[in-house]
């Protein structure tokens, strides 16, 4: 496996070297072409799926079922990308990430003409107008959570973030404005109303929802790529390696950690908007704590800090169990109910991954060697002596 990885790195390295040799405009053109190609390929997937083409037909991802799984996987790719920034790039364990997702969803619910008689809203704006606010609310929540808590040590931070998810959920459950546990129905779907194109995204509009996810995912990828290969990305890496040394070299540690939270939360804001408007009904029970842990599983198992890792992770957590379930005909496999048992298996996988392949299956280059050995900064039993 390591050999394959090395070869892949080499090919990628040569491509990058070649690319670096080109002029500025050529490079930008190439970049646009790459993303356009990705968008095109991604757009083709549901088309092929619906018509029952391979390779999707081999795994029974066809027709409506196939495109639903695709949509959910895409949504989770967005979530995994965001959490990857927090856990993978900055090294902060966030166990309550879905709280931001939930806040995004509730934002669009409360800002549009929801409810059967339009009663749950602060304002009544068109669905698209709510989108930037979903992102802002999620980011603001990241900021509010981050500032007081990011000075805490890793394990404490983890529990506090867990608590944050529950607090958000319970609050939504108990407030009247959010209609408590009954949730908010009738969230209007976005409508595209242009002279040349009129699209209403309803539950029946098949894979048009996926077409909304494509730009979201690609933008998230672009954002992560840009940040990773910059001063910000380097600072995050330094913080992961050794916070104290990083601070001593001028890295504003707490600011950078809060930034990771804020940036990471942004994708879940978008995801919340998309989810709420597609399903058109949200309730506190739609966002159990388990989901936060599952996103973590996706990121950790798939690969920390890498984009392909986030994609693989989402596929494993969402698509794979569905495929297995299809094959087993919704019967328990080896005594395990597929949808609840998968979580037990993921739990086991977390342990296995931590022991044997700490960066995850498709870890970013740096992360592969990192989590194996901590060195002075991260050691658990052997505390460093700073005195002389």
């Amino acid at each position, binding site marked *: 496996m390591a050999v394959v990885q090395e070869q892949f790195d080499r090919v990628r390295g040569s491509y990058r070297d070649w690319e670096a040799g080109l002029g500025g405009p050529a490079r930008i053109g190439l970049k646009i072409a790459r993303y356009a190609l990705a968008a095109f390929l991604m757009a083709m997937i549901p088309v092929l799926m619906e018509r029952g083409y391979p390779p999707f037909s081999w795994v029974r991802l066809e027709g409506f079922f196939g495109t639903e799984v695709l949509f959910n996987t895409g949504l989770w790719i967005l979530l995994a990308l965001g959490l990857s920034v927090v856990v993978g790039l900055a090294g902060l364990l966030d166990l309550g990430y879905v709280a931001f997702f939930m806040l995004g969803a509730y934002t669009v619910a409360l800002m549009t003409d929801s409810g059967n008689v339009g009663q749950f809203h602060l304002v009544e704006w068109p669905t698209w107008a709510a989108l930037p606010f979903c992102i802002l609310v999620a980011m603001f929540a990241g900021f509010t959570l981050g500032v007081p808590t990011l000075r805490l040590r890793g394990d404490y931070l*983890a529990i506090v973030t867990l608590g944050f998810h529950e607090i958000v959920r319970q609050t939504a459950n108990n407030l009247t404005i959010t209609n408590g546990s009954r949730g908010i129905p009738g969230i209007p779907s976005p409508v595209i109303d242009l002279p040349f194109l009129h699209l209403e995204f309803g539950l029946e509009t098949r894979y048009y929802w996926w077409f909304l996810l494509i730009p979201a995912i690609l933008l998230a990828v672009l954002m992560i790529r840009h940040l990773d290969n910059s001063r910000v990305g380097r600072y995050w890496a330094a913080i992961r390696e050794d916070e104290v040394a990083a601070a001593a070299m001028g890295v504003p540690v707490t600011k950078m950690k809060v930034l990771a939270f804020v940036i990471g939360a942004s994708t879940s804001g978008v995801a919340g908007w998309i989810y709420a408007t597609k399903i058109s009904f949200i309730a506190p029970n739609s966002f159990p704590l388990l989901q936060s842990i599952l996103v973590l599983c996706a990121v950790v198992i798939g690969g920390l800090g890498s984009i392909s890792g986030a994609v693989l992770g989402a596929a494993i957590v969402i698509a794979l169990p569905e495929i297995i379930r299809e094959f087993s005909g919704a019967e328990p496999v080896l005594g395990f109910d597929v949808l609840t048992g998968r979580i037990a298996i993921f*739990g086991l*996988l977390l342990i296995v991954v931590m022991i044997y392949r700490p960066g995850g299956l498709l870890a970013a280059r740096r992360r592969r060697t990192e*989590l194996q050995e901590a060195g002075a900064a991260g050691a658990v039993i052997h505390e460093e002596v700073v005195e002389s």
Partner: protein
Amino acid sequence: MDCNFGLVGTQLVTGIILGLLYALVALGYTMVYGVLKLINFAHDAVFALGGIAVFFVIGEWLGLNGPFSGIQLMFMVLFVLLVGGLVSAGGAVLLERVAYRPLRKRNAARLSYLISAIGASFFATYLFQQNFMLGPAKRGFPTLFASGEEGFSVQILGTRVIPTGILLVVVAILCFVILDRVINKTNTGRSIRALSEDPVAAQLMGINVDRVIVTTFLIGGFFGGVAGALYGLRFDNVVWNMGFIMGIKAFTSAVLGGIGNIRGAFLGAVLLGLLENMSTICISAEWKNVLAFALLPLVLIFRPTGIMGERIGG
């Protein structure tokens, strides 16, 4: 706010009882933290395992169900507690071996331990949810004491305290006294304290780190299992996710009292139990859990060393 002060007596009593249950679980968190400086996320599953073991061994396989009395009752109580404690102790040792030790040997980064522990917790918990284990619903727990009107009860502060409550109080206090003794007066306890205060020096003094760590997990696990059994007795059921909320509350208690500090864990837990139940006098019960979740960050931000500070011996 609509406060019903007539409930003070009841909530005081039930709060303390509840707190003592939290205390037994908090022990596991605080002890492991003391020697590893890490939260054992998977302790919630260890706790649940105790109750679930009793459910299976005594309830399902042996088919024993009360009510009992006299010598039989005493024996059953001991049996239940031992089954719960021992199975959980075993589970905790297994947990250490599988999810923690390989990482320790590799000198892994902190994040790895946390993720591994979460994995262990979720593996166990969702295993419990499968139909061949507990299944998704609450399952009835063996009854030991006669209930209802003919059952024994005591009146404290105007509250009727039934045998399970009394048992809980007695067992919890007993456990703490024993543990306090062990930690402060025995060699094993000394080793644990040494390791938690200065790992490097402890090793140089010849302490077998691996053995001490296993012992710590064993002790914490045993008490967690006893707590699981007591939970089952008190609430008359076990359910696959019984560990989850309990874990958060127990951990919060440990931090509140001073993580790594056994007496602190006891104090913090009782305090939390009291706070939780007393709060229902004025606030509706739905917000109770939010209290525990919100309390933790507040403590961590304003007094991170807890009420009694961080030394294991208190």
